[in-house]
Structure formats: structure tokens, C-alpha cells
């Protein structure tokens, strides 16, 4: 198990390095810089600014410097938000995004698994068709369409919930963004779960369990659920990535001060270090999560470990 984890961990390093390199050079090769503004600066000031942020050095040297600082956990100063380092901005934005993301994933998992199992147990009957049509609807309505519709209904017309804002993560402010983020994932997980549950239920282990005369409840919960969950576990990686990407637009719509907003604002302002910081941070997070998911998978399914 330890060997397996080490192997997976080492495998993640090139991914991160490529991610970092691509992001770095793409941004530096793009036209325009962080200090472009309506008024052009006097050349001396421009030169001083460039020197301060090491923009006057050769590109490779800047790249090396960035890597070196990163190894020390330093993502550099933000170009736009003077007086703030990227580390500070991420530290302030991430807890907000994390709360949003965790709530969404948790809800997607619980609801998705429950619906999928239900559909599998009622295969090709009205309940199954109903759930699967619902799931298809969830997949087909993009979250940036769903979010305004939710606001229109629950905030504007019914007035039950606030239309936006964060308010320190009060549950009333969380409900709508979390629904908008979770719904597509609920749909995907329900479909996955249905498929794998149907497959598992056909297996010999289940036939044996039933032949022993176990009650249906025990058969499903104790014998079928765990193997059927495997595809869902491996979907957690992509689901997290989707929730992170989705939160970029959801945070924008609901005016939530998370990392996604920092990213969009940073990109629009050419705040190199902030954008790099967010990409690297989220990239590392996704890679790390995929690693955890792999381990979880290996723990659940011993066959994987010995391959």
C-alpha cells in the first residue's frame, strides 16, 4: 500500500511541473503587461517597477526565480492589490470557496447515490424513468443558467432567500449557490450509480446473498452498495474539478468573495502572480485530490493494488 501511494505521488510531480510551466509561459508571452494603463508611465518609473518585480530579467531567470520561491511556499506579491501577497489573497478567498465546494460535493454525493440506487432497484419502471429524465435535465441545464433562474424564483419572486452576497457563509446565503453547483454533479453521480448498481446486482455475490435468505435491505446496503460505489469514488476527482471550475462563474453571479472571483478579476487585470497563484494552487489541489481518490479506490478495491 505504501509503495503504491509513493508511486502515485511521484507520478503527480510531472503533472504539476507541466501545469506550472504552461501557465507561466503562456502568460508571459501574451501581449500586454500588468502596468499597462490609460496613461503611459514615465520610462524611469516603468523601469523601476519592472526592476522591483523582476520583470526586467530574462524570461528563464524569472521562471527559475518563480520556481525557487514556490518551493519555499511563496507565490509572490500581487500586482493589482498592492500591499497584498498572493498567499494572503488565496488565504482569504480559499476558505470561502472551500465551504461552497465541500457543501456542494457532499450534497451531490448523498443525493446522487440515493437517487441512483433507487433508480437501479426500480429498473425500467416509472420511478427509474422519472429519475433518469430528471438527471438528464440536471446535466443539460448549465449552472450559469440555473443560477439566475434560481435567483429569479427564490429571491426575486418568492423572496425566501437572498439573491447574493456571502455574509460570512450564513446558510441562507449558501443555499442557492450550492444547489446551482451541486445539481449537475447530482445528475452525473445518479447516472453512474444506477449503471454500476445494476451491474453489481446481476453478480454472483448478490445471488448468493439472496440465496442465503438475507433480507433485501441487507443485500443492498451491506453487499451491493460498496462495490457499486467504486465508479462514484473515481468520479470524485473530475467532480471536484468541475465544482472548482463551476465556482468561478457561480461566485461571480452570487457576488461571493472566493478564489474564483480572484481568478477572473486577476486574469482581466493581467495580475500575473495572482492568476499563476490560483492556477498553481487549484492545480495542486486537483492533483492531490486525484491522489487521495486513487488511494481511497485502492483501499476499497484490493484488485487495484496488485496490478
Amino acid at each position, binding site marked *: 500500500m505504501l509503495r503504491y501511494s509513493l508511486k502515485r505521488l511521484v507520478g*503527480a510531480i*510531472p*503533472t504539476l511541473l*507541466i*501545469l506550472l510551466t*504552461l*501557465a507561466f509561459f*503562456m*502568460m508571459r508571452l*501574451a*501581449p*500586454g503587461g500588468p502596468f499597462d494603463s490609460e496613461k503611459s508611465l514615465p520610462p524611469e518609473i516603468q523601469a523601476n517597477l519592472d526592476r522591483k518585480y523582476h520583470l526586467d530579467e530574462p524570461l528563464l531567470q524569472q521562471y527559475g526565480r518563480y520556481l525557487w520561491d514556490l518551493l519555499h511556499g511563496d507565490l509572490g506579491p500581487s500586482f493589482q492589490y498592492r500591499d497584498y501577497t498572493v498567499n494572503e489573497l488565496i488565504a482569504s478567498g480559499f476558505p470561502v470557496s472551500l465551504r461552497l465546494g465541500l457543501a456542494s460535493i457532499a450534497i451531490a454525493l448523498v443525493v446522487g447515490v440515493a437517487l441512483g440506487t433507487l433508480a437501479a432497484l426500480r429498473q425500467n419502471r416509472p420511478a427509474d424513468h422519472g429519475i433518469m*429524465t430528471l438527471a*438528464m*435535465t440536471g*446535466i*443539460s*441545464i*448549465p449552472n*450559469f*443558467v440555473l*443560477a*439566475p*433562474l434560481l*435567483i*429569479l424564483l427564490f429571491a*426575486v419572486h418568492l423572496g425566501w432567500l437572498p439573491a447574493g452576497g456571502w455574509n460570512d457563509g450564513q446558510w441562507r446565503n449558501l443555499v442557492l449557490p450550492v444547489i446551482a453547483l451541486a445539481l449537475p454533479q447530482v445528475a452525473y453521480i445518479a447516472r453512474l450509480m444506477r*449503471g454500476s448498481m*445494476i451491474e453489481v446486482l446481476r453478480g454472483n455475490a448478490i445471488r448468493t446473498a439472496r440465496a442465503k435468505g438475507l433480507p433485501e435491505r441487507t443485500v443492498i446496503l451491506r453487499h451491493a452498495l460498496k462495490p457499486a460505489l467504486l465508479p462514484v469514488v473515481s468520479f470524485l476527482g473530475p467532480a471536484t*474539478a468541475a465544482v*472548482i*471550475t463551476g465556482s*468561478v*462563474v457561480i461566485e*461571480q*453571479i452570487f457576488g461571493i468573495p472566493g478564489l474564483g472571483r480572484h*481568478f*477572473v478579476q486577476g*486574469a*482581466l487585470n*493581467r495580475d500575473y502572480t495572482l*492568476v499563476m497563484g*490560483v*492556477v498553481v494552487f*487549484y*492545480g495542486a489541489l*486537483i*492533483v492531490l485530490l*486525484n491522489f487521495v481518490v486513487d488511494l481511497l479506490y485502492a483501499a476499497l478495491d484490493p484488485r487495484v493494488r496488485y496490478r
Partner: protein
Amino acid sequence: MTEEIRGRSLWQDALARLKRNRAAVTALVLLALIVLLVTAGPWLSPWSLDEIDWDRISTPPSLETRHWFGTDSVGRDLFVRTLHGGRMSLMVGLVATAVSLVIGIAWGATAGYLGGRVDGFMMRVVDILYAMPFMFFVILLMVFFGRDILLIFVAIGAINWLDMARIVRGQTLALKQREFVEAAVACGLTAPRIIARHIVPNLLGVVAVYVTLTIPQVILVESFLSFLGLGVQEPATSWGALVNEGAQEMESAPWSLLFPAGFLAATLFCFNFVGDGLRDALDPRDR
């Protein structure tokens, strides 16, 4: 009475099964209607894409004024804009899918066919790329290199080929081992003929399914970008851009959100249903 028993090809079989799937057929018809409306619809209206009706700014849908979907906040006709947006979204969907199709099939078939070390390396590349948060890269591309339509196509196509490559490779590997390929080899068929006659037709089914499922994904990505204001630019428009504009005035003019959102969702819904139907039709094991 001695009627010759004709074999049914994979596709005839699949078509018969698809026809029995009512949801998929309905979705297909609806999709055809949407495509027809989007292509021909703008000519039906007396208004054009960026014509401004100064007397009617942000008016609700009405048959009288011939603004069938109402007007937006600067007095442009929403019917025409929604359909033009649809042309853009569908075109992005088709072209970007084609890009991902070409790269994916070439990459996957090569890896699967050559096998061994080449395969290992090529798939490792796919694995590495797979772990990247690509949406962030597309957003960066859009921001830094301008909102070029061509760039949107390429960028989106470049994300989506990974799945295709994996699927094609897996399929090629599996097909290489099958008895009918062995039989074909035993019959003395040449390699190109085996590939053309036995491998590719069997790949096409999976690829067809995957294409119908990739198109809605691509449309979604484009809409996502346009929604953030990073996709197509004025005066051109797409469903994502229209949803964005509509969302800003949904309280006073809900129709400006509902029409493009409805079209977008309906199109994605249909593509997904057709794709699912195709998958079931081509691979009946799970029925």
C-alpha cells in the same frame, strides 16, 4: 418463397433499435426543428441582428410589433438574436468537436495499434494532461490572446480530445484481440483492409456516441466562456452571451433570460438524449 436471408449490418440493427427508443426519436426530431429554426428563422423576422427599434426598448414578446421574443435593453429583436446565437453555438459545437475528433482518433488509434512503449508514453501524456484544470487555461487564452472565434474552436477542441483518445485506444486494443480479426487474418486479408473493414466500422459506433455527447459539452464550454464575457464578441452573439445579458435584467425583463436559456437547455437536452439513445442502440448489452 425462397427469399434470400439477408444479414443485417451493425447500423441497420442499431437504427431499428434507435427507432424503438421514443425519447431519443423525440429528441432527434426536436433537434432537427431547432437546427431548422436557427438556420432559416432569422429570415422570417423583419428585424436584423443589430437593428435597434428605438420605440421599443426592453418590451415583452408581442405578435403585433413582430418582436416575437421581445426586445433587449437596447431595443434589438430577441428572436433574431436568439437564433443567431444558436447558429454560433451550434457551429462552435460542430467545429470544435471535429477538431477533438481528429486529434483523438489519430492519437488513440496510433497508440492502440502500435502498443508497447509508444502506447505507454502516449497514454502517459494523456494522463498528465487529463489532470489539468483546463478551463483555467482556456480562460487565460481568451483573456490574453483576444477573443478570436478560431481560437475558441481550437482551444475547446484541444481540451476534449483526451476522452476520445482514451476511448478509441481502448476500443482498438480490444478489437485487435477479437476472433473476427483473427479470422480475417487467417483468410489472408491485408492489414489496411482489416482496419478499414473490421476495426474502423466497429470504432464508428463508439465514436458516433461520443460525438453526440461531445457536442453539448463543447456548446456548454463556449456558453460558459461567453457568459463570463470571454467568448464571442459583439455584434456576434451566442446563447451563453445572451444568457449573460438576460441575467443582468431578469428582474425587469425575464423574457430576455428565458428564451436563450430555454433554447440552450433544450438543445443540450436533445443532444444528450440522442447520444444516450445511440449508445443503447449500438451496444444493446445493457438493455
